C-alpha cells in the first residue's frame, strides 16, 4: 500500500495521461472537455474512473473508453482500470476548462 503522497502523485500522472485521450468528434482531450468526473487510485493496482460523454447517445463512446484504458495500460501495464460511465450530473458546456474553451474558440 502506497502513502497518501504517492497515491496523489500517481493520480496526477494518470490525469496527465488522460490529457492525451481525445474525443475524436470534438477534437479536444477528455480532461479539458470536462468528461472526467473522478479518478481514484486505491494505492495498490486498481484505478476507478467515473466519466461521462458529451451526449448519452455518443456513437464513439466505447472507442473513448478503450482509449482511456489503453493509454493508462501503456504506462501502468499491471493496473486494473474500471471506467464507469455516468450521466448524472449530465455534462454541460460549463464543465469545459478555460483552456478547453480557448481551444474550441468559445
Amino acid at each position, binding site marked *: 500500500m502506497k502513502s497518501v503522497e504517492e497515491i496523489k502523485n500517481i493520480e496526477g500522472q494518470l490525469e496527465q495521461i488522460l490529457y492525451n485521450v481525445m474525443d475524436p468528434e470534438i477534437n479536444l482531450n477528455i480532461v479539458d472537455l470536462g468528461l472526467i468526473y473522478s479518478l481514484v487510485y486505491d494505492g495498490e493496482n486498481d484505478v476507478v474512473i467515473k466519466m461521462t460523454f458529451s451526449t448519452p447517445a455518443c456513437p464513439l463512446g466505447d472507442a473513448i473508453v478503450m482509449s482511456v*484504458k489503453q493509454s493508462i495500460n*501503456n504506462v501502468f501495464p499491471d493496473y486494473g482500470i474500471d471506467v464507469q460511465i455516468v450521466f448524472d450530473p449530465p455534462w*454541460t458546456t460549463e464543465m469545459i476548462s478555460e483552456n478547453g474553451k480557448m481551444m474550441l474558440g468559445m
Partner: protein
Amino acid sequence: MNNLQTDNAPSLSVVIPPFIFGSLSFLILTVLIMLTGSGLLGVYFAGKLLAITHLAVLGWSTMIVLGALYQLVPVVFGQGLYSEKLAHITFWLFGLSIILLVYAFWTSSYTTELLYAASLMFISLSFFGFNILLSQRKGIQNIQAKYVTAAIIWLLLTALLGLLIALNFSFHYFSEVHLHYLKIHAHLGLVGWFLSLIIGISSTLIPMFFISHQLDQNNLKYSFYLTNGGLGLLALDWLILQGTFLIPLYWMIISGGILFYLNFVREAYVKRLRKEIDTGMKYTVLAVLSMLLPMVISILIYFKLGIENSFHMRAVTLYGFSIIFGLITPLILGQTYKTLPFIIWLHKYKPYVGKFKTPLPKDLYSEAIGTVQFFSYYAVMIVFLFAIILQNTMLVTIGSYLLLLVALLYNINVFKIIFHKIQTESLSS
C-alpha cells in the same frame, strides 16, 4: 461496458452497401438528368421525370437513409438492430426493385415491369419497416423514436399507394385520375416519410454535432403533432373527399409544425459549443433553412398568389425540386460527411485507440473536395431555380453538368472514406 451505443452497432456489411448503392445512384441520377435535358421543364408526370424522381427519392435518398438508419438505431433507440439478416435481404430486394422501377418509368412500361417493381418495392420496404419497428419496440421511447415510427408508417403507406397505382394501370379500379393519387403518394412520401425522418434523426444529430445542450423539447413535440396531424388530415381529405376548401388549412398546420422544428434548430445553432461549422453542417443548416422554400411555394400555389395558369405547372415542378434538391439531397450530402467517416473510423481504428496515434474521422475524406462540392452544389441550386422559373434550356444544360461534377466529387470522397487504408503512428512520434 455500461450500455454504450457502439456495443449495439451493426456490422459494416449492413451499413456500407446502401451507402455504395446510394452514391452510385446519385451519379446515375445526374447522368439521367443530363440525358433528359429540356424534358425536365415539361410535365412532372412524364415517364422520364418520374424515373428521375424515383431514382432521387429511392435509389439515392432512401437507400442512404437505410444504411444510416441501421447505424443510428442504437443511437436513437438505445437498442441494437432487430435482424441483420433481414437488413441484408432488404438491401438486395430494395436495390432490385429500384432498378426495375426506374427502368419501367424510363421506358414507360406501366404494366408488367411497373407491377413487378412496385410489388417488390412494397415487400422490401415492409421488411425494412418491420426491422426498424421491432428494433424500436424495447428501446427508448422519446420524441425522436416517435418521429422514426411515424416516418416508417408513412413510408409503408407511400409504398402501398404506389403499388395500388401500379395495379390500377392493369386493372383500372380508381374512381379518380392517376394524377390525383400520384399527388397523395408524393406527399405521403415527401412530407410523411422524409420530413418525419429528417426531424426525428436531425433532432438527435444536430445538437450532437453542434454540441448544444438544454434545448426546449416542446418544439419537437408540437412539431410532431402538427406535421403528422396536418398530413393525416390532408391525405384523408384528398382520398375521401377528393380535396375540399380545407386543404390550405392542413397546409398551415403542417407549416406550423415545420416552424416549431426550425425554432428547435435555431436554438441548437445559437447555443452551439462548436463555433466552427464544417462542410457537413453547412449543408445541414442550409438544407434545414431550405424548408421555407416549399412552404412559400405551396402558399403561392394554393392561394394562386401572383401565379398565372401558365406558371402553375412550373410552380409545381419548383415545389418538388425545392424538396428533393433543396432539402433532402443537401441534407444527405452533408450528413454523409458526418456519419460515414465515423462508421469507418470506428471499424478500422477501434483496435488501435490508445495504442497508436490515429487520424480523426474527418481526416478520412478530403475537406477541399467537400468544399468545392458544397459551392458547386449551391451553384446548381441557383442555376436550376432560374432554369425552371425562366424555362431556359441552356441553364438546364449548365445545371446538369454542374450537378454531374457534384456527384463525381461526392463519390470520390465516399469511396475515399470506404476504402480508407489504416494509418497509425507510434504514440511517441
